[in-house]
Each structure stands twice: as C-alpha cells, then as structure tokens.
C-alpha cells in the first residue's frame, strides 16, 4: 500500500513538438473513434427488444398464493396468528404486518384481517382471513425490506417495472391485483428465483445467460457464468 504520484511530467508526458506540429494527438483520438465505427451495435432497441430483468430484480410487488412450496414453518405461522388454514390458490398472507413494520414508509400498506362469520361449532370458528391488503406504490422506494421480513414469502418482488399511470389511483394496488401479478410472475419465472421451499437457492443465476438483448449490451461478448466459490458446483 503506497502513494502514487500523478501529474504532468510525473506519469504523463507533455506534448512533444512533433506531436504538436503534426496533430498526432488528434490522429490517435480519431483512430479510436474509427475503430469503434466498425463495431457491432450495442444499444438495445427498446421497446421492440427488452432486456429481461435479473431474477433478484426488485420490481412491482406481488402477493403469492399457496402452491405447495411454502416454507416448513408455514403451518405453524398460520396457527399462531389464528388464520383460517388457506387452501391451494388462496393467499399466503397471514396478516402479520411484519412487512409494514419493516417498511421505512409504513403508510404504504393497509392490511386488515376479519373474523370469519361462522357458527360456533364450525371448525373455522374464531379464525380470521385477510380482508384487505392495499399498497400505495407511489410511495414505495423498492428497497426490498418488506420482502425480507415476510415469514411466509408471501410478499415478493416481481420483474414488472412499468408502473406508469395517469392518476395516483393507478398506483394503489389491492389484494387481487397483487395476487395476480405474483401468480403471473411465478408461472413465468418462479423456477429461476425460488427452490421448492421458497428460498433463494444458491444456483440462482445473476441473470439469464440466454438473454440476447443483454448480451448485446455486453459488446456481444457476454461472460460465461460459473460457480463463485471453491465448493460450489
């Protein structure tokens, strides 16, 4: 570790007379420019060509439904919070509000659970279901803290990034919309992001290697992806 001195006459030579007279500095610069003239195009032709966001991309939120890949302790959480055990296709949200507690802008969320209106002898008596889950994404900064806090991997980030709307109303998403976004995302890319128990697996790739648009942005010479660590396959 040291100190490296830089400056004119230190690591850079001033222009010589020949360079000055024959404009060699400009020639050299032009050479670089001309070299680039014959390279392939590297710009992505949006919106006709799209780069697929990375699996970890933090886009618009979704609320996952029960699909048999819940974490091991899912049932314990459901029991603890006195939620009606969800069936296949129902939301995983147990209205624990951990996401809201972790969020730097808690006003984003409105989460409510209602007691089920069933007679006393019904097995679901005294249990609750999620009745409202609204998110106002115009206040969200897509920091990802809510998704890390969720014990059931219910609230997730999807790869949707176009959230433009003509009114502020358009940024308030309700339970149904959020579930639809998540279902759609899981069907498209769930395998890339989660393993069978809804964890991020260690084979989760930095991005999809086969994405031609991204390859273009990498000078048509994208990196070959391999394991990071000595003991990883």
């Amino acid at each position, binding site marked *: 570790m040291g100190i490296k001195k830089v400056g004119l006459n230190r690591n850079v030579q001033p222009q010589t007379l020949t360079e000055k007279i024959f404009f060699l500095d400009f020639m050299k610069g032009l050479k670089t420019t001309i070299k680039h003239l014959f390279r392939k195009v590297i710009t992505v032709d949006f919106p006709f060509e799209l780069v697929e966001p990375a699996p970890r991309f933090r886009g618009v939120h979704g609320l996952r439904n029960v699909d048999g890949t819940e974490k091991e302790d899912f049932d314990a959480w459901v029991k603890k919070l006195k939620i009606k055990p969800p069936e296949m296709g129902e939301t995983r949200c147990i209205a624990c509000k951990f996401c809201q507690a972790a*969020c730097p802008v808690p006003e984003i969320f409105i989460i409510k659970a209602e007691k089920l209106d069933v007679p006393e002898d019904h097995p679901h008596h005294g249990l609750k279901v999620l009745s409202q889950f609204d998110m106002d994404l115009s206040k969200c900064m897509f920091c990802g803290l809510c998704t890390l806090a969720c014990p059931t991997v219910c609230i997730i980030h999807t790869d949707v990034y176009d959230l433009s709307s003509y009114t502020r109303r358009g940024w308030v998403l309700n339970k149904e919309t959020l579930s639809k976004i998540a279902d759609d995302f899981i069907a498209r890319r769930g395998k890339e992001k989660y393993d069978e128990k809804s964890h991020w697996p260690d084979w989760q790739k930095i991005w999809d290697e086969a994405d031609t648009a991204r390859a273009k942005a990498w000078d048509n010479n994208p990196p070959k992806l391999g394991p990071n660590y000595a003991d990883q396959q």
Partner: protein
Amino acid sequence: MSWITLDKIKKLQEQFDFVQINESDKGFHSVEVPKENFKQFVQFLKEDPDYRFKMFIDWTIVDHGQKADPRFQGVLILFSPEYKERIIVKTWATEETLPTLTDIWAGAKWAEREAWDMFGIKFEGHQNLVRMFMWETYPYHPLRKDFPLKGYEEVELPSLNEKERMDQLEGLQNYSRMHTALPTLEDLEITQKKRMPNKKSQVVLNWGPLHPGTHGTIWFLFDMEGEYVQECDIIIGQLHRGVEKLAENLNVQQIIPYTDRMDYIASMNENHSVCVAAEKLLGIHEKIPEKAKYIRTMLAELSRINSHLLWLGTYALDLGALTMFLYTFREREKIMDIFEGITGARFTINYFRVGGVYADLPYGALDAIEHFIKDFPTRLNDYETLLTRNRIWLRRNIDVGIITEEDVYSYGLTGAVARASGVPYDLRIIDKYDAYGEVEFDVPVGEKGDSYDRYLVRIEEMKQSARIVQQCIEKLRKMSKNDPFFFEPEDKKMKITIDGRGTKLFKGEVYAGADNPRGELGVYIFMPKDGIKPHRFRLRSGAFYNLQIFPKLMVGRPIADAITILSTIDPVVGETDR
C-alpha cells in the same frame, strides 16, 4: 483506529482545567469545553505541535430536546493529518448562540449556515449568516426536535391532487390537499439578494437551477466584470429532503435506502458509510464475517469505477467531447447489470446491511465481474488516448481552479479533490474499514491541485479500484458457499436483523464513514441511551464541503471555467442537499 488516545486527552486536561472528558468503551472519546473557552481551545488544538488538528471535518449541532437546558450542543470534529487522529470537541450553545469558527477554518462557513438553517443557532461573528438550504423567509428550523416530521401543512396545493379521481380513494391512502410551505417568486428574490449583499455589477448572471452543466439542481450566481467573475455564490437546497430528520425516526437498516437517494450515482458507497458507522457504534465492525467484508469492498470499488465513469463522461461532454460520454456509458451499463444481478436494483441499491450484506452472491457473479475487470484496462486506455494528451483538453484543464494544500485543510476537502492537491487523505488507509487493510492498492496524489490533476487522480483511482476488485475476487473464490454473509450476535443485548425490525443501537457516539467517490461521507451518530431510533444522525457530506470551495476558485476566472471547475469538483446534488 484513527482516534485520539485517552492519554493525549488527559494531557489536554492537565493543561486546561475546564476540559471534560467523555470516555467511551469503544474508544471514541470526546472532550467538552465551556463556550467561553471554546475558541481559544480549538485554536490551541489546531496550532500546538503535539496535536495539530488542522483539518476541518465537521461542525454541527445536537438538539437534546425541548426539556433539556441548555438545549443545543455544538459538535466539532477535527482531524490531525500528522498524527492521523480524530477528535470530537463539544460545547453547549447557551442562549442559542455559538462563536463562529470561520476565521479559523474557512470550511465552517457553510457548516454554520446549515446549523442556523436547521437548528436556529446564531453564530456570533459570521460574516453573512443566511440560510443554507431553505429560502430566506422560511419561518422554521426543521431539525429541531419540536418540528414535526410531516412539517406544518399550511398551503393549499390543488394542482397536486386531481379532485374527481382522488376522491374515489378511500381510507388512509388519500392525499391531503394541504401542503407544507413552498417558496414564492418573491421569496426567491429575497433569498438571491441576501446571498450577494455587495454585488457590484448591474446584472447578476444566473446559472441553473436547471441547467445540464450543473449536473443537478444547483443555482449559481455570478457577479461579472466583463467575462470575469468578481464574486460568486451558490444557492442549493432544491433537492433538500431532510434525510437527517427522516433518519431520526427510523431504525438504522431503514435509513440505508434513504442514503441511496443521496449520492445516487454511488449509492453502494453511501450505504457503506452508514453500515461502517453503525457497526462501529455497536462495536462489531471487526467481527463482520470475512465474506461480507470482501463482498462489500469489491462492490464498493466497482461502484467507485461506476461513479468515476459517469463523472468522466459528463465532464468530457461538458467540455465538448461527446464520444467519451457514449463510451463511458457503455461500461457503466455493464457494471449496472452486475449490480442488478447481485443486489436486485441498478441504481438505488440497498444491498449492504449493518452486519454484512442481505444475500450471498448469485451464481456467476464473480465471473461477470472478472469478465468486466479483464476488459476494463483496454477501455480505460481508449479514454486516455482520447483525452489525456489532447491539446484542447490540456488547455482547458491545466492551471484551472488550483486548490492548495492549505485550502484542503481549512475547507475540509476530501476525496479526489484533496488528493489532487497532494494530501493523501483517504479513509481507506486511515481507518482500514472492511477489507481495505488486507488488499494492496496505491493512493494517487496530484502535485498542483488544478483540474488536470483532479482528472489524472480519478483516472488512476479507477485503475487502483480495478486492482482491488481483482484481489477481492481471488479471495472470494477460495471461500465456501456456506460461509456466513451476515453477522450473528452472541451478545443477548444486541439485536440486528437483515430486514431491520428491532435493530438496536447502543448508547454512545461515533463518527465514522467511508471514502466515497465524491469525498468522505461521514456519519455521526449520537445516542443518549440504547434504542432503535438514532437521536441525532448527522451525515457529513463530502460533496457539500467540496462544493464550498467553488466560489473561491471562480473569483477572477472567466465564466467558461465554471464548467471545468464544477466538473472536477464533481458534486452530486442529492448529497450536497441531503
């Protein structure tokens, strides 16, 4: 650790009987002196050959709450380049006044204006104590504890809300029709006049607030004599969002995404500063898992390259070399792709956590980074052929905006700006946070301190960063996929979580930070007792203090140099305004 030792403080106490010592078990001792002796004491610290605290770092206020008497306390942070030590000097601001330090350190000028603006502390003897971020007629001092987080909503702004559609929104998520105070045109005129009380020419030239050359919303005022600038001032604050106030109401992990929005070009490094400071306060910085340390160092350096590439591109663009801009953005794109894959976001990253990082590297991350780093030197060569010895480039940069070594100390300049003036001030070697103590790299320093030196220093920094990244990759390759990336406390009293819920800070105070592409972002955290929310969360912005020297450099220069000088100082408005 770069902190003054207890012995040395004790010696101070022997010499001055009014000195009180606040000892800290983490080693961050501070001293407290009465207001009457304050100036004499800091003058002594600056000049005495045993101390030589001649570098100004920060000068701010802590509000102890309405009930406390006296309520406000001034906090001065100094650095001694000779002994590589830091000290905190505190004094109570009785009757809401403090003596000015502008005659000892020129850098105190903006710091005092900020303190007046945010806390309403008057500095006796300050030559023009006007507001820093808010407009002149603004009635409040927002960082006082009695100012509500939401502000006072007192003007109606119907244009922000569309009535018909909005009224369909039910419940909490509707927008209030009332808004906090906004400046009117008259307010801005008053502000502008107050900033330049003794203008000489007929017309003041305005540059900004919205001009592509200012790289953000900075508003420059030039008092011109022909083409030459006689006096210059800067109005900032258009992007002021009160991050410090917000931070006082959040837990420390939740503050990190806000710092993303400060220096949005190097958000990784901003996150790094907060993490390092909070970890030092908790006393766990040395115990962070090796893997997290290396990942953080590697990504922070990549982010430095990213930020310098943006600087280089826009700087060359401003001086008329358009192609450079396109070339550097091509390389930036790759770095942002890497960030996207690893962290989940391209720009506002929020990947570092107090205690490590939030996830391990995804499959293929190291390969992608290695691929980039292998290719990068040839690209950098291309840039250098285009610029370094180009005659136009030389003419426009050499001897423009010379910053002397003295200026560096008295203005508290940091980062590449300080190093170009021959001051090897770099937190990476002074504090050796994270893995910087274990990797090999050189700190480039310039000779003259002109724009050309600042250019060369940043180019060299990119090469050194690439070197660090390469070493981190090699080190990470040898690790195991099962190594932890987040710190698990053994101490029962300590709680830190990846999602931030319940993350606690300990009683005490700390000043620490990281060396960012735009200077040192220092974080001063003050905690009167253990708790979740920091009592005072001061962000010492490198870009803010670096920008302060701009008016001085501009005096006597032609207006065309404004672009060169501003670009080589390289402030980013998100960070100057916070």
